[in-house]
């Protein structure tokens, strides 16, 4: 979706403002937000792609003014409600009211080290050979779905070169919507700055994205 998250090339959002000696957390609730988000991800009820799409669906004014941990918490509430684990009314009330859905797993303290060290790899084998190889010229597709995609708006309908075949991975555009993992080859595609941004682009700039095979057409 062309949501508030798709920020590449937007203007008017101010200076970057790096913080000197930034702490890991700026408030106690950020620590709990991190832990809650990871813990609930372990339920096995939604994918990282579905959670990204829940974040993208936060209304733009809220999205653009929230800290990222707030974005996480808002999306987490959506996911918990959608999958029957907790309703907003319960969170508003601050205590349990309904019987929750049954998660596949619950994260206990003694599992944390192992779970974090394992992570969640999303490379998957595919039967087909890659359609493209390094050096091939490709054009990204033009589409504007209401649904989740990882092809940013600024990189649509642009011509670039395959730089690397990175492996085959879960396809988020499907996986975010419960349509299966449907893995595809992923390529690093590199574009001249001028192809992306036009005549006034920094001439020394190149930009790359990692693109699933179905985002690409041979030129």
């Amino acid at each position, binding site marked *: 979706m062309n949501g508030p*998250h798709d*920020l*590449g*090339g*937007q*203007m008017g*959002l101010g*200076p*970057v403002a*790096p913080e000197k000696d930034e702490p*890991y*957390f700026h*408030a106690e*609730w950020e*620590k*709990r937000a991190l*832990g*809650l988000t*990871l*813990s609930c991800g372990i339920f096995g009820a939604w994918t990282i792609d579905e959670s990204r799409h829940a974040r993208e669906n936060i*209304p733009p*004014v809220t999205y653009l003014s929230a800290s990222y941990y707030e974005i996480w*918490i808002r999306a987490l509430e959506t996911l918990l409600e959608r999958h029957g684990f*907790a309703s907003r009314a*319960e*969170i*508003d*009330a601050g*205590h*349990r009211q309904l019987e929750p859905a049954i*998660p596949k797993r*619950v*994260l*206990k*303290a003694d599992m*944390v*080290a192992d779970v*974090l*060290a*394992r*992570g969640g*790899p*999303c*490379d998957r084998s595919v039967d087909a050979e890659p359609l493209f190889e390094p050096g091939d010229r490709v054009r990204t597709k033009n589409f504007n779905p209401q649904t989740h995609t990882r092809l*940013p708006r*600024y990189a649509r309908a642009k011509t670039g070169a395959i730089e690397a075949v*990175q492996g085959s*991975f*879960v396809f988020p555009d499907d996986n975010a919507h419960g349509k299966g993992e449907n893995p595809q080859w992923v390529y*690093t595609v590199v574009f001249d700055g001028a192809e*992306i941004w036009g005549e006034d682009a*920094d001439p*020394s*700039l*190149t*930009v*790359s994205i*990692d*693109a*699933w095979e179905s985002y690409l057409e041979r030129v």
Partner: protein
Amino acid sequence: MHDHDHHDHHHDNRYTDMQARVRALETVLTQKGLIDPAAIDAIVETYETKIGPRNGAHVVAKSWVEPEFSEWLQTDATAAIASLGYTGRQGEHMRAVFNTPETHNLVVCTLCSCYPWAVLGLPPVWYKAPAYRSRAVIDPRAVLAEFGLVLPETRKIRVWDSTAELRYLVIPQRPEGTEGMDAPELAQLVSRDAMIGTALAGRPA
């Protein structure tokens, strides 16, 4: 004012007190047996004490002193980094990109907040915020200048937008005057920002 009723429908309720909101959420989920508060403590402790930019600095310093390791990083960063014990969440699929005298690398995630946790820990606020995400891909020189990094005009800039599950670690150039230093000393020169691309490696004191 009654005019606020209809044209302010974009404002959903501001959470005026995130601390209370998150505490309520944790309470409800704990009551339901869905989460273990001690697991949250363990997660926080891990990212406060164990997984942070020192991991990445170790990788960088080792690549500076061991050409074979550098080569391995180039061909299979995930395995090379895992050999040092840095694996797992948001580091499952690693790529190392090497600065050269010709090209400076800069990493961004325009669409969300993708970041190589296993080697850099949790991302800073600015990395996840709209200003950096919007500008790094279109005006990287101005962004770098805001970090105090002014590159020669002839230096090419390569921006890596982390749109898939690959996580990028920038390997900065080894600074001059470090010939006699060993890896632990060199690692002290490698800041988090140098491994994102918003800084260079530091010079020895």
